[in-house]
C-alpha cells in the first residue's frame, strides 16, 4: 500500500451548531478502506459531509491533497443521481472529470462511461432514465459514476444499504478496482459484516468519542466484547 497522505484532519470538530464529536486528528493514506461505524444520528454523515466540503467545521481544519476537479468522489445517502436523466448521462458526469480537454475528449468520455456501466452490469439500462430503476440498480449507477471518475478519495454514505448480496458483491468489486489504483475509500456502514470483510481501518463514533483503529484491533475488540 502506498503511504501517500491524501487527507489530514487537524483537531477537526464537526457539527452544525454544537460539537458532535471531540476533536479528531488523523491522516488517511491512499489505498485505505475506512468504514465508519456508529449508531444513527451520532455524526457519521456530518463527518463525511465536512470532508466533502459541504459543511464547515466548527473548529480545527482538514487538508485534502487531491485534485480540485474530480479528485473527490461522493455518493450521498440519497445517491445524488439526476433522476430524469439517463444512466449513461449520470455516469458521464464522473467520466467528464476524468478526461481532460483534447480532440478525442468526447470519444474518451464515452468509452470511460460505457466501461464503468459494463463493469457494474447495467449496460441494458444505459439509455433508461434513472427514475425507472430499482433502488439496487440506482446504487450501481452511483458507483459507476464514481468508477468512471476515478477519484483519489471516495466518500460514500451508506451506499451498500438495502442491497442484496449479489449487488453488494458487484458494487464492492468496482470499489476494489478503484482501491487497487490507489483510491482511498471512506464509507459509512451500518452492516458490520460488510466492514468486517472489506475495510482495512475502522472509525467508530460512540458517546461523542471518536475511535480510530485498524481492522485487526477492531476484530479483537469485537471478540473480547463477545467473550464478556
Amino acid at each position, binding site marked *: 500500500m502506498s503511504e501517500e497522505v491524501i487527507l489530514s484532519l487537524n483537531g477537526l470538530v464537526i457539527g452544525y451548531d454544537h460539537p458532535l464529536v471531540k476533536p479528531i486528528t488523523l491522516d488517511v493514506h491512499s489505498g485505505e478502506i475506512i468504514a465508519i461505524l456508529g449508531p444513527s444520528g451520532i455524526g457519521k454523515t456530518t463527518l463525511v459531509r465536512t470532508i*466533502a466540503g*459541504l459543511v464547515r467545521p466548527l473548529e480545527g481544519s482538514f487538508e485534502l491533497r487531491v485534485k480540485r476537479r*474530480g479528485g*473527490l468522489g461522493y455518493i450521498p445517502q*440519497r445517491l445524488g*443521481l439526476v*433522476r430524469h436523466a439517463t444512466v449513461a448521462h449520470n455516469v458521464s458526469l464522473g467520466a467528464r*472529470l476524468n478526461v481532460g480537454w483534447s480532440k478525442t475528449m468526447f470519444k474518451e468520455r464515452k468509452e470511460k462511461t460505457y466501461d464503468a456501466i459494463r463493469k457494474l452490469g447495467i449496460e441494458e439500462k444505459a439509455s433508461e*432514465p434513472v427514475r425507472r430503476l430499482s433502488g439496487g440498480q440506482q446504487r450501481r449507477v452511483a458507483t459507476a459514476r464514481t468508477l468512471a471518475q476515478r477519484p483519489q478519495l471516495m466518500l460514500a454514505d451508506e451506499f451498500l444499504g438495502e442491497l442484496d448480496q449479489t449487488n453488494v458483491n458487484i458494487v464492492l468489486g468496482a470499489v476494489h478496482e478503484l482501491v487497487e489504483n490507489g483510491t482511498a475509500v471512506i464509507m459509512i456502514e451500518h452492516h458490520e459484516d460488510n466492514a468486517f470483510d472489506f475495510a482495512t481501518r475502522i472509525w467508530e463514533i460512540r458517546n461523542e468519542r471518536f475511535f480510530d483503529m485498524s481492522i485487526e484491533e477492531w476484530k479483537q475488540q469485537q471478540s473480547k466484547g463477545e467473550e464478556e
Partner: protein
Amino acid sequence: METTTIEGGGGMKYRLFGILLFLLFLAWTTLDGLVEGDWGRLEGGLSNLAVFFEESMWPPNWSVLEARSYPVCEQDIEFFCSVGYLGMMETLKIAFVSTILGFVGAISLSSLAARNLMPLYISLPVRIFLSAVRSLPSLIWAILFVIVIGFGPLSGVLAMTFYTVGYLGKLQYEVFEGMPNDPLEAGRAMGLHRSSILLNIVIPENSNHLLSQLMFMFEYNVRHGTVIGIVGAGGIGYYIHTYLKFLQYDKVFALLIIIFVVVVLIDLLSLAIRSFVNEEGDVRKPTWLNMLIQARKRKSLDGLAATPPQLLWPRWYR
C-alpha cells in the same frame, strides 16, 4: 368492550373550514366596500348580457375565414388569405419567437437568481432585475416598443420577450430552489464547474417543470398576443381591435373562438411533450381507443371472448 377515543382528530378540518368561512366573509365585506353598497347596478345585468350576445355576437361571423378583399389573394385556397388565418399565424409567430428568446434569457438569469446555485450577492440583484422586468405588464412593454421602434410585429416580439424573461425567470428560479439537494451536493463535491452543474444536473432534473412552463408561456403569449395587438404590435389583436372599433362583435366572437381552439391545441401539445419526461409517462394509462382495438382483436380468438377487462389492456401497458 373498552374503546379508545382519539381526541382532536377532526379539529384541524373544522379549523380549516372556519378559516375558509372567515376569508369568504372578508372577501364579501371588501367587495361590498368596493361597490359602496350599491348592488342595484347588478339588476338586469344578466338580461343585458343576453341581449348583447343575441343581437351583436351571435351567430359568429365566419367571414373572417374567407379571403380579404384587399390585397388580392394569390393563394389557391382562400382560407390562407383570411383575417383569421393571417392574424392567428402572426400571433403564433410572435409568441413562438418571443417564447424561445425569453426562455433562453430567463434560464440564464434564473440560474443566477436561484439561492441554492449562487451566493446572495449575485442572486439578489438578479432577482430585483427580474422583478423590475416583470412588474411592467406585456401591454406596457408593447406601448413602449411601439413608441421606440414603431408599429408592427417586431414591437410585439420585443414586448413579449421582455415579459417572458421576467415571468418565466421567476417560475424557473423557484423550481430550481425546490429541487432535491443531493444531486447538487454530489456535483459540487466531485468538483463539477457551476456551468456543468447547471447544464448537466439542474436542467435535466427539472426538465418536466421547465417544459411545462415553456408550453404555458407559449400559450400565455398566444393569448396575450391579442392584447398587445390592440396597441399596434401586430397579430390577431390588431384585427380584434379594428372590428371592435366598427362594432362588428360577431367577427370579434369568431376570432375569439379561433383563439380558444388554438389554446386548447397548445394544451394538448404540451401534454404530449411532457409525457416524455414526467413519471406519469412511464406508466401510460390505456386510452378507450386502445382498449376497444384490443377487445376486437381478442374477440376474434376462440375462447377469449370472456377475458377479464384488465387483460384487454395493450401489451405495452402491462
